[in-house]
């Protein structure tokens, strides 16, 4: 049995729009376009969506004060940030406006705080506040008591980035968008009023308009279309994830005073109750270099402790790294000036996640300007089916869930309290790798990191998909989990 949505993938002759890259940008564009009478295809080189930069970041809905309103990224950030409450209602993903603090540890940092504050006011950030030491400690008692003052942006928030992308893609799919994974765009050719797009494996599709939202690889995709030449530099951000039992969990996101090059090492309470510390900012060896390093992680611990002294290395459950797609100082979102019917969504560094819903709108407008006809669908459905989570259910609710589906009574992942029913839902939604299931359900994401549940998930995957043991991967490609049987 192959998952439901993979079966429903019949090919269209010619698509109106092909979107290359299923990160948070491509997913937002896809969902936006799904509102119109269009044939849209979302192309992704990996085995699942959201396996690029959109899975490994800080997951913050930013406060709108870090960049000046004259930049495109600040405008899209401010606009995007306001769209999350509605998206949260429509799309089942964890999101919370917990607020953001920027903490100054020395008097001489207060100048920068004041500038951020004024910039925030000018940008129109709601509720932004300059804080005294006392106010900072009242807002966040876990802060270093040496704090001298800071900034508070109550509208800032946190979300689970991959769940956001999964929901966007599911919503787009429900409204007719096709999703092709393991489709790595390699070459393209314009014939008549159509792009012929070829994947590495030889498959070909045709589309009238193309959106290049290939993240780190937007430069090579542009080159494949004979469009603008530019270079994206990967810049690494390393993190530690701390167990939910840590005593150092703040209730708000804590930023240090930013430097020229980065927003610094943050302490982030995740929506799911764990704590994230990071990211660093250092050049990566390549676009595939996701390795963490001892020196950088030591720096993370040290810098995070400056903000929240209670952070302990004993609370670490894992480390990971994400790569920023660095290009210039602003987002590069524009119609190609060299070739027709191609929109670049490139250089989307932070606050790309925050801005992404607004990027969806912006790209739609660009496509319209380029001649794409937009007719709204009368029956567009903004909502996805909410998958109940055992973790969130009280005893009576869980009892009712088990009565409907006994698989809710089988707790597969004990650390994050994930039931078999949720694992099955992940698989049926197309997440057929261990990592895909992890991001959808949180199973293997807790303190034991899969020590107890991996074999159970393998069993369920084999049962639900008919895969053999030697086909199970961690995240596609050659990431095979098992090498033989007895």
């Amino acid at each position, binding site marked *: 049995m192959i998952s439901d949505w993979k079966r429903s993938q019949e090919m269209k002759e010619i698509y109106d729009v092909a979107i290359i890259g299923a990160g948070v940008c491509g997913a937002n564009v896809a969902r936006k376009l799904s509102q119109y009478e269009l044939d849209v295809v979302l192309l992704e080189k990996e085995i699942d969506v959201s396996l690029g930069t959109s899975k490994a970041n800080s997951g913050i809905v930013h406060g709108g004060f870090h960049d000046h309103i004259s930049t495109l990224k600040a405008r899209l950030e401010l606009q995007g940030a306001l769209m999350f409450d509605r998206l949260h209602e429509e799309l089942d993903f964890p999101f919370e406006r917990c607020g953001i603090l920027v903490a100054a540890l020395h008097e001489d940092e207060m100048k920068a705080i004041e500038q951020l504050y004024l910039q925030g006011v000018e940008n129109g950030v709601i509720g932004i506040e300059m804080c005294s030491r006392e106010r900072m400690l009242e807002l966040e008692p876990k802060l270093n008591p040496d704090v001298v003052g800071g900034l508070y942006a109550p509208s800032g928030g946190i979300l689970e980035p991959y769940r956001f992308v999964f929901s966007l893609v599911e919503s787009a799919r429900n409204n007719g968008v096709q999703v092709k994974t393991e489709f790595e765009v390699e070459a393209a050719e314009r014939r008549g009023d159509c792009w012929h797009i070829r994947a590495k494996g030889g498959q070909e599709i045709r589309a009238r308009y193309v959106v290049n939202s290939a993240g780190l690889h937007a430069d090579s995709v542009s080159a494949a279309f004979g469009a603008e030449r530019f270079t994206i530099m990967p810049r690494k951000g390393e993190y*530690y*994830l701390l167990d939910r*039992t840590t005593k150092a969990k703040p209730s708000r996101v804590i930023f240090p005073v930013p430097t020229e090059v980065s927003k610094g090492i943050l302490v982030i309470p995740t929506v799911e109750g764990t704590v994230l510390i990071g990211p660093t900012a250092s050049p990566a060896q390549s676009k*595939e270099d*996701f*390795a*963490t*390093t*001892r020196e950088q*992680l030591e720096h993370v611990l040290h810098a995070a402790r400056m903000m929240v002294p209670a952070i302990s*290395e*004993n609370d*670490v*459950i*894992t*480390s*990971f790294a994400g790569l920023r797609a660095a290009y210039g100082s602003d987002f590069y979102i524009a119609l190609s000036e060299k070739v027709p019917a191609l929109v670049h969504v490139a250089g989307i560094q932070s606050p790309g996640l925050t801005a992404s819903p607004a990027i969806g709108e912006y790209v739609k407008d660009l496509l319209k300007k380029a001649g794409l006809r937009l007719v709204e669908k009368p029956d567009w459905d903004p909502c996805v089916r909410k998958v109940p989570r*055992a973790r969130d259910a009280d*005893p*009576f609710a*869980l*009892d009712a869930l*088990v*009565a409907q589906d*006994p*698989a*809710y*009574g*089988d*707790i597969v992942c*004990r*650390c994050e*309290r994930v039931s*078999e029913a949720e694992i099955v839902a992940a698989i049926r939604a197309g997440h057929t790798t*261990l990592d895909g299931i992890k991001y959808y359900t949180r199973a293997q994401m807790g*303190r*034991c*990191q*899969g*020590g*107890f549940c*991996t*074999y159970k998930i*393998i*069993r369920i995957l084999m049962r639900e998909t008919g895969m053999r*043991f030697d086909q199970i*991967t*961690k*995240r596609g*490609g*050659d*990431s*095979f*989990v*098992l*090498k*033989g*049987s*007895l």
Partner: protein
Amino acid sequence: MKQLTFDAVVIGGGAAGMAAALELDARGHSVLILEREDALGGILMQCIHNGFGLIEFNEELTGPEFAQRFEEKVVARNIQVSLRTTVLDIREEEGAKAIYCVSPEQGMMRVQARTIVLAMGCRERNRGNIRIPGTRPAGIYTAGLAQRLVNIEGYIPGKDVVIIGSGDIGLIMARRMSWSGCKVHAVIEILPYPSGLTRNIVQCLNDFGIPLYLSHLVTDIYGNDRVEGIEVTPIESGALMHEKAFKIACDTVLLSVGLVPENELSRNAGIEIQPTTNGPWVDSMLMTTMPGVFACGNVLHVHDLVDYVVEEARRAGANAAAWLSGYRPARELRVKTGQNIRYVLPMRINPERENRLYMRSLVVKNDARLEVRLDGAVVKSRRLAHVQPSEMLSLTLAPEELSAAGRDSTIEIALV
């Protein structure tokens, strides 16, 4: 929601849970064992090698055989067992203890009990806990997961293996993987001495010619999709010798870097956890800070041998039964850790009864003396040819040895 009532509920049906339940049953109390897996036995079920039961049964059994002996008694005594049942919450409600648990067959259940025995076992420490940097490819497993995959699921996780940490499960897996036709290239241990039992070093490494690198740290794991190798750096007088670092190619990394008692349930119930053991604080009856809640086995502290687990669990079961019948110790003495001792368990002793104490050394030492001091005066001492942190120590204190104890006396255990 289904409601049940028992005198005692045992959480976890491993060796500890079964042993404790048998004692409670033998003293006439109604007992329910709640176990999340579909069989009793706990971690023993995946330990198909020999070496269990030398103390308990005076013979060498495999893990499942050892478990079976207890399971047969549980069945013979008609003790109630609810399998595939995960305990989610322990609460105090209206003066009683309520256990919330769920199973696919029964849905959510609320079990009310007068006493609870915690026997949830432990989990393995993982890569994040020891903070090895590098990439995150497929092919990195804890040794216990690999043991499960090979021994029960019947899969081989990889062919070219390096084992990080010299804990017993890792050593046993070195042998198991070799038997399964895999090449185990090395065992890497950060400490200058192995953390597993000596007999396992001999039988699982030496007999297979597997090199053990002591005082070496794994400083990198590389490979994108699947593990391709690791970097190992020697440690000399406490410093990393980066210029002497070397690489070992492998497709699989197994981690055997320690076990941690599984106390999330206890923590959420407000039970105090000891930082030295990661298990509950317990008094002379093995009772936690929540009155009527007892703990035993690996959830209390990590044991080397299952024989000690059942010995401790029997006492927890018997004490829980005594507590149900109204027994309370008249007087308890504080137990302190002295020189070279990481922890002593329990944290209180009863001067009117026989007390069994377990402890771990902080150091490796030959020709050591284990001393029990009552308010500073040595009341008992024992010569030990060799001590090391990985081998648990135990001793028994009789009331006669404590006859000098006053109201506020303290017992201190030291290794000199």
